[in-house]
C-alpha cells in the first residue's frame, strides 16, 4: 500500500497493511510529520509534536515484522487534544497561565497506546475547552474562517490529513462543532461510555470523550477501543466496551428516524436547512421510517446548560481565581470563569432537576424512534473575528448560535455524531447530527453509515 493511498483508507485497512508488511508505519508517520511541517504553520492545529513519534513508529514496525501486533491500531498515527494528560508530552489545556498539569495518562490514551497507536502530538484547543473558535487556528477549507472548538485543532488535523484520527472532548458540542465546520466525523458516545480519567475537567456532568475521524467506520472502531468501565472516572458507566462493527452495514430497512421540529430547526441558514432536508428525504427513500415530533421543554435548555457549565467550570477554577491566576487567561475565558460566580446554588440545582425532566420527555421519543436527526449547527464556518450572525430574521452572537443544536445532547448525556451531509456555495461543510438512546451508539453508527454512503466527502489533502 502506498503511503499516499493509506492516508485515504479506513484505519482497519491501513492497520492490516502494516500487519502484513505491505505498509511501513515509519514511512506513514514520516509523511504525516512532513505534511504537518509544511502546512501547519498556516492552520495552527498542533501545539506540540511528539519528539519520539518516529521512534514509536520504528518500534512498532520492528514488532510487526516479528509478528507481535499490539492491537487494532498497530502503527496508526493519531493526534491527541491538549486537555488529555500525556506522560511524555506536555499538557496545557489551551492555557498560557502558569498552571502545571501532571505527566500522567488516563483510560482513553492508555487504551490507544495498548492498541498500538502512534501519538503524533497534541492538538490546539480553545482555552480550558471554554469556547468554539480555538484561536489562532484556521479552517482548512478557508483559512479566513474558524475551525470551531473547543477541539478545533483535532478537527483541522483530521480534515487537513495531519493524522488518521484525533481525540476530542465535548461539553456542549466541542467534538461535533469542529467536526461540522471542518467536514469530519465526530462522535461523543453516551455519557460515561469512554472513561475521562486523565482529561482536564471542564464541567463534570457534561464532559464526554470521543474521537474525530475521517469516516464513520473509524469512529466506530475508536469508540470500540476506548469504551469500557473506567474506575478512575466517577461518571464512568459500568458497561462493557462497545461492538459497533455490525452496525456499519445494518442498512436502513426498519430504521425509525425521529425529527424534532422545534428547537433543532429554528433560525438556521437556508443552505444548511436544504442539505439536511435532502438527507432526511434520502433516509426515507432508503425505506427508513421518518417520525416528526416536538419537545417544548427544550426551550429551557440554554439556561440549564449555562447554569451547569458556568457553575462547574468556575468551581474547577476557583482556586486559580482566588490566587489571581485567572488574570492570565484569555479575555473571553476569564470572563466566563468570573461569570460563574453569579450562578446561585439553587439555579444550579434547578438546572440539574430540569435535566431529569428532559430525560423523561425523551424516553417516550426513543420508544418510538431509533435515532433523532437534524443539523449539527445552524450555520457553516464563520469568519475569524465575526461576532454576530443573522439567521431567520434573528440577530445573535455566533457563539450562542454555534452550540444551539448540540448542547441538548450533553444535557441528556445521549450519544450523538456529526458527519458531513453537503457543502454550501462557498464549499464549506454542512454537518448532519444523529443522536440515539442511552448506550445505543449502534443505531447512531448505523444511521451515520447510511448517510455517509450518500455523500461525496471532501478532504483538504
Amino acid at each position, binding site marked *: 500500500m502506498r503511503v499516499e493511498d493509506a492516508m485515504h483508507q479506513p484505519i482497519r485497512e491501513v492497520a492490516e497493511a502494516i500487519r502484513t508488511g505491505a505498509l511501513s508505519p515509519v514511512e506513514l508517520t514520516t509523511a504525516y510529520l512532513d505534511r504537518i511541517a509544511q502546512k501547519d504553520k498556516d492552520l495552527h492545529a498542533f501545539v506540540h509534536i511528539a519528539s519520539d513519534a518516529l521512534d514509536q513508529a520504528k518500534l512498532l514496525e520492528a514488532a510487526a515484522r516479528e509478528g507481535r501486533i499490539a492491537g487494532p491500531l498497530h502503527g496508526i498515527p493519531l493526534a491527541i487534544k491538549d486537555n488529555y494528560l500525556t506522560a511524555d508530552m506536555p499538557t496545557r489545556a489551551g492555557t498560557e497561565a502558569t498552571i502545571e498539569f501532571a505527566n500522567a495518562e488516563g483510560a482513553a490514551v492508555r487504551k490507544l497506546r495498548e492498541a498500538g497507536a502512534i501519538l503524533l502530538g497534541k492538538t490546539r484547543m480553545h482555552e480550558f475547552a471554554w469556547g468554539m473558535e480555538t484561536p489562532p487556528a484556521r479552517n482548512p477549507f478557508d483559512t479566513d474562517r474558524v475551525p470551531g472548538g473547543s477541539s478545533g485543532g483535532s478537527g483541522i488535523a483530521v480534515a487537513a490529513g495531519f493524522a488518521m484520527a484525533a481525540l476530542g472532548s465535548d461539553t456542549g458540542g466541542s467534538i461535533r462543532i469542529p467536526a461540522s465546520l471542518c467536514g469530519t466525523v465526530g462522535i461523543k458516545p453516551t455519557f460515561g461510555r469512554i472513561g475521562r480519567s486523565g482529561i482536564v475537567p471542564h464541567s463534570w456532568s457534561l464532559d464526554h470523550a470521543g474521537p474525530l475521524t475521517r469516516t464513520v467506520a473509524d469512529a466506530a472502531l475508536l469508540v470500540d477501543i476506548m469504551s469500557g468501565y473506567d474506575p478512575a472516572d466517577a461518571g464512568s458507566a459500568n458497561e462493557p466496551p462497545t461492538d459497533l462493527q455490525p452496525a456499519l452495514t445494518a442498512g436502513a430497512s426498519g430504521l425509525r428516524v425521529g425529527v424534532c421540529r422545534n428547537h433543532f430547526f429554528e433560525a438556521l441558514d437556508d443552505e444548511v436547512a436544504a442539505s439536511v432536508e435532502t438527507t432526511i428525504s434520502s433516509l426515507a427513500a432508503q425505506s427508513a421510517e421518518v417520525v416528526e415530533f416536538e419537545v417544548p421543554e427544550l426551550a429551557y435548555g440554554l439556561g440549564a446548560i*449555562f447554569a451547569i457549565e458556568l457553575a462547574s467550570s468556575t468551581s474547577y477554577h476557583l482556586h486559580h481565581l482566588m490566587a*489571581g491566576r485567572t488574570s492570565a487567561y484569555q479575555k473571553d475565558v476569564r470572563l466566563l470563569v468570573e461569570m460563574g460566580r*453569579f450562578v446561585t446554588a439553587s*439555579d444550579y440545582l434547578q438546572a440539574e432537576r430540569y435535566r431529569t425532566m428532559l430525560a423523561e420527555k425523551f424516553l417516550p421519543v426513543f420508544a418510538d424512534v431509533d435515532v433523532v436527526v437534524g443539523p449539527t449547527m445552524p450555520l457553516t464556518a464563520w469568519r475569524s473575528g465575526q461576532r454576530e450572525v443573522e439567521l431567520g430574521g434573528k440577530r445573535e452572537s455566533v457563539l450562542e448560535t454555534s452550540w444551539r443544536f448540540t448542547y441538548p445532547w450533553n444535557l441528556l448525556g445521549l450519544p450523538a455524531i456529526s458527519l458531513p451531509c453537503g457543502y454550501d456555495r462557498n464549499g464549506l461543510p454542512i454537518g448532519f447530527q444523529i443522536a440515539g438512546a442511552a448506550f445505543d451508539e449502534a443505531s447512531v453508527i448505523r444511521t451515520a453509515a447510511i448517510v455517509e454512503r450518500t455523500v461525496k466527502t471532501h478532504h483538504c489533502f
Partner: protein
Amino acid sequence: MTENLMTESPADPETLIATERLTEVREAFKVISREIEKLRGLELGDRHPAVVFRPMRKEPR
C-alpha cells in the same frame, strides 16, 4: 500574569472578581441571567437533580 496581578484592584470578597471588573462581568452575565430566569419559573414537581451523591464502597481486604 505578574503585571496583571500588580495592576489590578483587590478582589471583591463576595464574588472574588477584581472590583474594577465587576461592572463588566455583571453586564456580560445579564444575557445569561435572562435564560436562567426562565428556568426558575419551571415547575419541576418532586424531581431530583440529575447529579446525585453515591457513597464509596470500602475496598475489600
